[in-house]
């Protein structure tokens, strides 16, 4: 996510400030030589991430309502046994939230970010093992609406974790390769916010799948 949130860079335009070419009268005022505007406040990283979270909440709210309605709509719902490894992956994800929070507060976030990245990958691996466990017991995607929702919700959450891992990869790479990265704190803050959200979202989904069987 953070890789997409590139700040506004003042760009030099060749031959005057004309955005659409210089063959116009009244087009070249200002010129391209003056100091460009300084990038606006980094607050927008936080704002943007909160809004993205809002959109994701709506996606999972829609899934939740579908879950509740589908469960009540007919009598073919057979609850599934949740794979036990989910407790372990939950613990891993909770730990990763702690580590990214440490990264956020550290003056040198390198190691904590890398640790978070590894924990995130472990979590994904664990989720995959959970799928394998289920499949081994003969419960597939189309077996029952309950299993459909299990795969759907864990899959969509996993996709978001994957996005978070990509963002972390980018941030880790920038942090290691570019010590003077101006927007470092803002990027780490935004990534951490996203990561905490994914953590909370997983707790919610786990709870939903466990309690509302």
């Amino acid at each position, binding site marked *: 996510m953070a890789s997409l949130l590139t700040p506004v860079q003042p760009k030099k335009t060749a031959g005057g400030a*004309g955005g659409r070419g210089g063959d116009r009268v009244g*087009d070249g*005022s200002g010129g391209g030589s003056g100091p460009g505007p300084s990038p606006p406040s980094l607050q927008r990283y936080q704002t943007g991430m909160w809004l993205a979270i809002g959109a994701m909440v709506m996606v999972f709210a829609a899934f939740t309502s579908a879950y509740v309605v589908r469960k009540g709509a007919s009598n073919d719902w057979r609850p599934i046994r949740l794979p036990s490894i989910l407790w372990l992956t939950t613990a891993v994800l909770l730990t990763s939230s702690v580590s990214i929070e440490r990264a956020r507060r550290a003056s040198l976030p390198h190691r904590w970010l890398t640790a978070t990245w590894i924990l995130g990958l472990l979590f994904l691996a664990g989720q995959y093992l959970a799928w394998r466990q289920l499949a081994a017991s003969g419960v597939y995607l189309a077996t029952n609406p309950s299993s459909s929702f299990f795969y759907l919700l864990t899959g969509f959450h996993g996709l978001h974790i994957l996005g978070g891992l990509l963002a972390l990869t980018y941030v880790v790479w920038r942090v290691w390769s570019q010590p003077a990265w101006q927007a470092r704190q803002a990027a780490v803050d935004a990534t951490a916010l996203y990561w905490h959200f994914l953590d909370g979202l997983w707790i919610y989904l786990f709870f939903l799948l466990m309690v509302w069987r």
Partner: protein
Amino acid sequence: MAEMAHSHAAVHVHAAPTGFIRKYIFSLDHKVIGIQYYLLSLVAVFIGMVLSLLMRWHLVWPSAKIPLLGSLFPEGAAGGVMTPELYLSLMTMHGTIMVFFVLTTAPQSGFGNYVLPIQIGAADMAFPTLNMLSFWVTFVGFLVLLAAFFVTGGAPLSGWTGYPPLSALPEAGPGQGTGQTLWIVSLAIFSAASLLGALNFITTILDLRARGMSLLRMPLTCWTWFVTAILGLLAFGVLLAAGALLLMDRVAGTSFFVPGGLVVSDKIIDHSGGSPLLWQHLFWFFGHPEVYIAILPGMGVVSQVLSTFSRKPIFGYKAMVFAVISIGVLGFGVWGHHMFVSGMSPYSAIAFSVLTMAIGVPSAIKTFNWLGTLLGGKIRFTSPMLFAIGFVSLFVTGGLSGIFLGQPAIDLFFQDTYFVVAHFHMIMGVASIFGIFAGTYYWFPKMFGRMMSEPLGKLHFWFTFIGVYSVFGPMHYLGLTAHPRRYSELTGVKYLAQSEPLHLFMTVAAVITVAAQLLFFFNLFWSMRKGPQAPMNPWEATTLEWTVPSPPPHDNFAGAYPVVYRGAYEYSVPGAAKDYLMQSEPDGKG
């Protein structure tokens, strides 16, 4: 689209090809991206218009041989005669293209992208890279949708609402295979792009406003883009989720929406327990806000234009803001009025009906404030002004028929008749299009540095205004005679025989109206090259985009940060030297 941007830009730019790609194809500049969005919807509206013309033709002459049709659609129109299935697929694609790639794209992503940052005094959107990505993802979504025409079986038949089980079962019809899958994928792509866009718009408004640009000094256009973006942020995720479920029903054998015991095309369907109603709830939870996503930006443009050309402050600025916000909020609570006959408890229906009626209040506030703005103004009947007034007329007409449809008892009769077609075309289709036209005539000088032809614009307005009433007005009457919609051929039906002359009239009107749009296309592209040079502020308007050259420099304010001293609509201020005060004009000079 890329070709269009290419040919257009090639006229003006003498830059090296590498610079060209960065400046005009994968540009980060919100102005270029705005124009890209606008051109994309121009292509889309042209295709959508041709599809509607083919349908109108077929409704009057169902067995007519249409010359090119047979070679375009060898499956759906062998020998040039349209099959009922092809009719349905044209209808589906017309609706989908128009709703998503025209009504959602041009007013919000097009004009919003171009004008919003300048109007609030920012150098660009908050996240330029994200902005570029939104456009190109939308573009890919458009290509995926068009691809549905050319796969085996052709485009889907299930309408822009894609109700299952029809949309969930590949065996349900010729377009229900790959075509329907592409349709779902296209909508998912569009949703993702719209979410990125919405996030960008909201952040820009919250964090990038110039000094002095308080929320309540923002032009009403910015308010409508703001509220529209919030609606988009909350609604498109739900469509995305619903699309994912539908796709899984199609390709992974799940049963979210498909009930058990279905036999389709002599085949027993291997699904059980799914709920088609669930799709309708999810879809309309998105779909109703979507209607406001289409119309709200038009309302903003109309407010701006009416105030400018009446030379009066907008009547009741704060009431207008309040009305926009309450329309947005209420818009999330009325989706059930699309489902009165789908199997809904009468009590829920009443609740949805009451909320629907409640939207009439802010809508009426807006209408009366527009009329109040016109009242006693020194009105300048320019092309944008004509289209803005036309918008108000269409909004009232379409809104009034909504009051009938919003009542469950009356809707029992009207649902699935042409009355519904008349209603949503008036309010969502044509009114929004008039908003786009008003915006085009109004901001064209800023966007392209040249003026459009006024006589051509006025001619375009009168043909279009009378034209759309002639096309969609009679549909109300058809609805009263219980003429059902969506049927490709009803010419032989006895109780509808009396409506055949009316169908002929509407088709002739549609041909003329569509032909009149060529005036617009000509005016647009001719003026880009040959129109007279536009001054900085041709309309003597007050908002910030008129303080910068036409077209504006790359970062809008050439490195400077504007400061805002007053509200957006200070026209005919008593004691002022001119009849308008720019937002950037310091207090002392007033």
